[in-house]
């Protein structure tokens, strides 16, 4: 099948977008998207949408502990704000990179994962070494619904990571003031939130004021993605961040997280116009804004 595909590409003289060493391991049409797992030299990656989709997750087969994407390294910056989490919630599983890394760092951490697509959970288990256990639960649910439901329970989290994406961007109902207020309600006083966003468009400003509106100041870490880091009862000063970073250095290094690199990303500059409109459940044309 793969050979057939290659010869088709050659025959038609079209760019198929797949590098020479790339091999497709698995494709699947789930209820929500086309899922594709492929290998690219030493990397094994997950993407949504054939060939055009952005990579959701990659693991390095010869060094599976290593966090391959800068954004996942920046998400670990949350630990500089709370170095000893007890109960984590991750919304959006992808290849399971984040829960797998947290499990290695904290063997006793309780981890809840909300993932809308059961096929993604299956693929993460089968191809990316994601495992569930008594301490790691994966719930198949829309992230927003999971959060709303969790609010009616006594459970509260001291580490929340938002990493829910469809093939376009973050779903619109998970970008609003109401959603972030619900997230805030799920956090303990010392609770920390890390949100992965990668908008470089007009949406960047809307996202920023919406987070600011609900949480106040946040650390804004930028690379090709932007990661927002928040602590519910206020940001620590940089001295505390550095102390926590130093204490975690030896444990984060095997994951490919370099202290100095990560610390250099910390910024709380507000580089967006303050008069931008806040996104709400009533007004959240996020994906339309993102395309402009």
């Amino acid at each position, binding site marked *: 099948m793969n050979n057939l595909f290659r010869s088709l590409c050659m025959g038609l003289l079209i760019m198929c977008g797949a590098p020479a060493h790339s091999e497709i391991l698995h494709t699947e049409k789930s209820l929500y998207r086309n899922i594709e797992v492929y290998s690219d030299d030493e990397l094994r990656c997950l993407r949504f949408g054939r060939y055009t989709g952005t990579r959701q997750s990659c693991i390095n087969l010869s060094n599976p502990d290593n966090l391959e994407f800068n954004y996942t390294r920046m998400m670990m910056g949350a630990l500089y704000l709370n170095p000893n989490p007890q109960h984590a919630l991750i919304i959006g599983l992808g290849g399971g990179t984040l829960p797998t890394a947290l499990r290695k760092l904290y063997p006793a951490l309780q981890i809840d994962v909300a993932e809308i697509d059961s096929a993604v959970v299956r693929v993460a288990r089968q191809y990316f070494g994601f495992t569930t256990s008594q301490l790691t639960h994966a719930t198949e649910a829309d*992230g*927003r619904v999971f959060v*709303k439901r969790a609010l009616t329970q006594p459970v509260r989290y001291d580490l929340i990571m938002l990493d829910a994406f469809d093939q376009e961007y973050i779903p*619109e109902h998970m970008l609003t003031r*109401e959603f972030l207020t619900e997230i805030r309600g799920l956090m303990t006083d010392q609770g920390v939130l890390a949100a992965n966003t990668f908008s470089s468009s007009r949406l960047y400003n809307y996202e920023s004021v919406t987070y600011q509106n609900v949480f106040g100041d946040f650390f804004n870490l930028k690379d090709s993605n932007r990661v927002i880091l928040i602590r519910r009862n206020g940001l620590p000063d940089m001295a505390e961040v550095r102390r926590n970073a130093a204490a975690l250095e030896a444990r984060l290094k095997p994951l490919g997280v370099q202290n100095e690199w990560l610390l250099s990303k910390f910024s709380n500059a507000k580089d967006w116009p303050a008069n931008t409109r806040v996104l709400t*459940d009533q*007004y959240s044309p996020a994906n339309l804004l993102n395309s402009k």
Partner: protein
Amino acid sequence: MGTFSLSSLRKPLVFVLAGWSGFYVMAIELLSGRILAPSFGNSIYVWGGVITIFMLALSIGYLIGGHLSVHAPSLRRLGLILMAAALTTLPVIIWSDALIDMVFTRVSDPRYGSLLASSALFFLPTVISGCVSPYAIRLLVTQLQASGQSAGKLYFVSTFGSAAGTIGTSFYLVLLFEINQIFTTLILISLLLGSLAILFKPASHE
């Protein structure tokens, strides 16, 4: 003279009401997904539930509209139907948060939760909107021979309105306005068009 020119507007107004009703139903259907998403998610089954309820309501509306058209049909009554659909949409603006919260706490399965909430909020206005098309056809048909042609034109206008309501709402309106602002505007336009129709005295043949 005045009465004469006014009655020449009768047919065009029937088409306008039917086209607007098509626009109205689809605009509301799209916004209903937005209203339900915070509590029930954006999952495929939430849309499945919404579309089921709208289709079911429209089918029942067609039946009732056809039945109503048998007895003394008039443009005035068609206007009243449009206004009734608008007024029964009002609870969506006023009570949707409370109602959705109530369903959310009682029904844990988001499929049945969204089905229940969309029935409670959108079933009635959509049944009434469904009455518009068959009723409008009755007002257009004067000869048996041309009845299919009248029905065809009416379907064209009302479905074209639906297409316009779908693209207009999803591409543009949500970018410019809040959901409740869009609902309010839709309701006001329906009330306005309905009152225009009410101004028409029953025609001699009606």
